[in-house]
């Protein structure tokens, strides 16, 4: 009977602590989301053309600058840098929202394969064998 009570209490306490969901409903997270979302409209044609590809580490990369008109190259470079900075800030904001700033690398790791999974057919993504078209 005593053992049962221990187990029950342990199970209850485990549930209370273990069922924590990752929180991402903070103003900081939303602000970054809004920026990434706005930038996506500009980046989309470059994902489709293959000028920009998705890395395995949750960043994006200029993979075919030659396909981009000279006049647009600088702006595209800025877009890619800003996107990578914002993604890093997104991971940091989510970690902070959960009061675990040290989770940032794990959150990045959780996001990295999901960006690739959500990529549209035709986009270029990095794999263990190099660049592949989805």
């Amino acid at each position: 009977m005593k053992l049962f009570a221990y187990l029950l209490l342990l199970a209850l306490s485990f549930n209370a602590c273990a069922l924590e969901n990752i929180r991402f409903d903070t103003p900081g997270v939303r602000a970054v989301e809004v920026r990434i979302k706005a930038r996506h409209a500009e980046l989309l044609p470059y994902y489709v053309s293959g000028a920009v590809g998705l890395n395995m580490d949750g960043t994006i990369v200029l993979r075919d600058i030659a396909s981009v008109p000279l006049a647009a190259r600088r702006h595209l470079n800025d877009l890619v840098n800003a996107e990578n900075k914002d993604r890093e800030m997104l991971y940091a904001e989510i970690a902070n929202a959960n009061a675990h700033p040290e989770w940032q690398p794990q959150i990045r790791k959780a996001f990295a394969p999901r960006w690739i999974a959500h990529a549209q057919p035709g986009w270029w993504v990095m794999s263990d064998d190099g660049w592949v078209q989805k």
Partner: protein
Amino acid sequence: MKKIWVILAVALLGACQTVDVFFPQESATKAADRIISDVWQPAGKPVSKEPK
């Protein structure tokens, strides 16, 4: 009898602390899916606020 409560309290706290250090991987993957579908969806739809 008092001893039991002490043990229980320690077990409770222990469970919390042990579990707390684990990163909620599954929940993080779900959060990533929610956020990525949000930011990559066609323009015009609002960014979601609720974690699920």
